[in-house]
């Protein structure tokens, strides 16, 4: 099976290829303004459906997910060959692919949420694939905690959104503008929190670099091209519904802006090649959020272009990093260099991807940068975008160019990786080039429909590769030059980096949570049975007595009290108190018996001779059993009356009294007793109705009762038969 599996996995990539072609078939339909819908009834009572909805923006994502998915699966088959968990990898990554497609195609808020959480779960499994390493486990848990924490807020936001919009259907919501709704602010904040956690926006950015513990194909797929974009997808998806306000603008540009600068800076100052790439992904995610915050038509165009360009070049660079690791066995970016000779194909893929990331014409990255600058032209925000871009140029040189050029360090003995490892990045790199060359077609087929869906209206889109000699072009040129400068100054920049950050804060938080859990567990799980009893009784009292006191009580009349009956009751009450106060076990038992006999009398007065008889017999037996045991026991220790125990007793007693007064004789249904009264003699030939119920109508229950009694007797017998000393003998 295993040897067969080794070969079969090379064919898995055909599945996403098929999906890619399948999704591509919808393109003409979508271009004609149609939408694709599928829905199954799920929770009709709440208006929730298992529904899917495909428009231009979802299609862009679906194509990226299936297209890059195909490359990653082929790459993974080779990269993880002879890896002990290769089988799991394929299970998890295919499950992830399904979840991610479900997420971007969801046409219902709850459907979307379920797939959202599934991507978090599969990401957890993939990051923790090599679970023997503690660092992998920590990273997996951290990614899970952060994204699921965000997911909780997302759920709240989605439910509020459905309440505000009156529907869980995405399509129904997209037709509305809820910015004036009173729920608007909570909805926006909750959704944004969910999206920020998922897309690693500041201050949740720390989990993404740590998630690099995952095998490289996972990083390339989940943590650059697809899953981390889910947050951006969510914000963009609801831009027509929630966008355009001051809060939206302020929140997204601020968080996105901080994230993109922080990410780009951390990327350039990191040492390990995958962390460099992870931070640069954080940075680009910040840029996307930032552009959504700006929200102008130009910004949305730029967002879609950056999204597309980034998915291609970043996916490629991750795969290149994996190939370099495979061929040269080195992860530290400063130790790499001069590999182009030994690894020509990998180098070609890496250089093409880096060219797109730097923004050299005629790549897709160049087009994206032109539109980015054009969208922000004349605003102060351009400065932030420029700074980010120049740092990212430095990152591109660091991760995509430096390993292949210059002098080869002596300790490296590189060789070219097998073809699945270099073909993937090469295809992605070439795609960046081809899409850039065909920019106008890409704009018409892919970008225009997506922009229209994010903007919520038709937007004229004309994407071009060459915009002429204008200020934007010179700014692009300046970015590249400044980026080269940043690249060469990275050593000095590293000294500026902070010694601690959000990752440490996360550790503190987890430690604090553990302490809190331990503290409250030892507080609540103390091991004293009677304190548990007291807790249960006290809590029960609070939840029942307080509301019950507000109910109107019809006081049954005091009439019909006969003096001798009252005397019996008084005696019983006194005996009960004596049981509690007596220090002599025998006297206490006698008092207990007195209470029992009193109860027998009550049964007798009120038409229950059978009960009276049984109670009398049983009480006698009880007293005897108690007396037999208590005779061997010392006098009770003197116990102080603990006020809270007495108070709890009084409270529970009062609650029971109150309950009886509220409920006695208040049966709302016709009593079943009437059946017994009529049928007892006719059907069962017995005149004592109680007896007939026990031995005829409910005879099986009585059999059960007998069994219980026998078992109790056997248990007691077995206990008594044992001799003193070790209970095990």
């Amino acid at each position, binding site marked *: 099976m295993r040897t067969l599996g080794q070969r079969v996995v090379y064919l898995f990539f055909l599945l996403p290829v098929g999906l890619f072609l399948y999704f591509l078939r919808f393109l003409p339909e979508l271009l004609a303004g149609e939408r694709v819908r599928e829905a199954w009834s799920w929770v009709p009572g709440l208006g929730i459906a298992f529904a899917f909805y495909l428009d231009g923006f979802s299609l862009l994502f679906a194509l990226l997910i299936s297209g890059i998915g195909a490359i990653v699966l082929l790459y993974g088959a080779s990269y993880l060959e002879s890896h002990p968990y290769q089988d799991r990898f394929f299970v998890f990554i295919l499950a992830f692919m399904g979840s991610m497609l479900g997420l971007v195609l969801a046409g219902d808020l709850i459907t979307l949420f379920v797939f959202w959480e599934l991507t978090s779960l599969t990401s957890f499994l993939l990051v923790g694939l090599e679970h023997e390493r503690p660092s992998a486990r920590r990273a997996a848990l951290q990614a899970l905690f952060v994204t699921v924490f965000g997911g909780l807020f997302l759920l709240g936001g989605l439910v509020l959104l459905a309440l505000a919009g009156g529907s869980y259907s995405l399509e129904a919501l997209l037709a509305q503008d809820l910015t004036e709704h009173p729920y608007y602010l909570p909805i926006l904040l909750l959704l944004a929190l969910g999206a920020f956690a998922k897309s690693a926006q500041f201050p949740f950015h720390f989990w993404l670099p740590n998630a690099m513990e995952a095998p490289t194909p996972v990083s390339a797929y989940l943590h650059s091209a697809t899953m981390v974009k889910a947050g951006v997808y969510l914000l963009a998806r609801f831009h027509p519904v929630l966008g355009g306000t001051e809060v939206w603008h302020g929140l997204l540009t601020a968080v996105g802006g901080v994230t993109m600068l922080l990410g780009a800076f951390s990327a350039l100052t990191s040492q390990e090649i995958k962390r460099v790439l992870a931070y640069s992904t954080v940075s680009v995610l910040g840029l996307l959020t930032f552009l959504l915050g700006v929200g102008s038509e130009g910004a949305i165009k730029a967002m879609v272009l950056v999204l597309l360009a980034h998915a291609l070049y970043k996916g490629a660079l991750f795969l290149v990093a994996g190939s370099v690791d495979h061929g040269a066995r080195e992860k530290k970016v400063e130790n790499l260099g001069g590999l182009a000779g030994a690894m020509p194909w990998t180098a070609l893929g890496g250089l093409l991807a880096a060219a797109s990331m730097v923004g050299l014409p005629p790549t897709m990255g160049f087009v994206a940068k032109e539109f980015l600058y054009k969208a922000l032209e004349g605003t102060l925000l351009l400065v932030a975008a420029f700074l980010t871009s120049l740092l990212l140029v430095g990152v591109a040189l660091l991760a995509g160019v430096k390993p292949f050029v210059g002098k080869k360090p002596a300790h490296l003995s590189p060789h070219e990786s097998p073809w699945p490892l270099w073909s993937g990045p090469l295809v992605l790199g070439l795609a960046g080039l081809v899409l850039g060359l065909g920019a106008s077609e890409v704009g018409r087929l892919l970008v225009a429909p997506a922009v229209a869906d994010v903007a919520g209206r038709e937007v004229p889109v004309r994407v071009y590769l060459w915009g002429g000699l204008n200020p934007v072009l010179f700014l692009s040129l300046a970015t590249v030059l400044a980026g080269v400068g940043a690249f060469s100054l990275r050593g000095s920049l590293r000294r500026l980096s902070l010694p601690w950050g959000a990752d440490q804060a996360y550790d503190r938080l987890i430690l604090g949570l553990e302490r809190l859990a331990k503290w409250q567990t030892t507080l609540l799980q103390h091991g004293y049975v009677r304190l548990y009893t007291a807790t249960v009784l006290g809590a029960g009292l609070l939840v029942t007595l307080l509301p019950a006191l507000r109910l109107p009580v019809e006081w049954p009349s005091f009439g019909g009290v006969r003096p001798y009956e009252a005397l019996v009751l008084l005696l019983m009450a006194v005996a009960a108190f004596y049981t509690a106060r007596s220090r002599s076990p025998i006297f206490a038992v006698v008092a207990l018996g007195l209470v029992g006999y009193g109860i027998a009398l009550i049964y007798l007065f009120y038409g229950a001779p059978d009960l009276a008889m049984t109670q009398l017999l049983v009480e006698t*037996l009880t007293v005897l059993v108690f007396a037999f045991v208590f005779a061997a026991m010392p006098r009770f220790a003197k116990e102080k009356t603990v006020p809270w125990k007495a108070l709890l*007793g009084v409270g529970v007693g009062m609650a029971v009294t109150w309950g009886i007064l509220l409920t006695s004789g208040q049966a709302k249904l016709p009593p079943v007793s009437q059946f017994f009264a009529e049928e007892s003699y006719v059907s069962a030939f017995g005149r004592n109705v109680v007896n007939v119920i026990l031995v005829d109508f409910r005879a099986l229950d009585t059999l059960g009762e007998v069994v219980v009694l026998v078992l109790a007797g056997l248990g007691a017998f077995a206990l008594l038969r044992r001799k003193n000393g070790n209970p095990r003998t």
Partner: protein
Amino acid sequence: MMVLLAFLVGVLVGVGVYLVLQGSLARFLLGLALLSNAANLVVFLSPGLVRGHSPIIPLGAKVLEPPYADPLPQAMILTAIVIGLGVLAFAVVLAYRVHQVLGTDDLDELRGTDR
């Protein structure tokens, strides 16, 4: 009379709870006995009180004519009394063995015998 009985049950439950919360195993058992008796009374009072009319069909009659004390709770209580005895007898013997083997009646000292 119902009012008085309701208060009596309240007293029995109150004392029972107080005893159950004590540290001594023997007094815990006394409380348990009181509580089970009180519970039976609650069931007995639930349909209301009918004085002196047992649910027994007189000779010559074929059906039970009202007024009669409700036979259904009585049948349930009869079962409960007997089960109560079984539980109590077992618990008392258990307490006896605990006292015999471990030499203590204090519930708090019974912690962690499984270590």
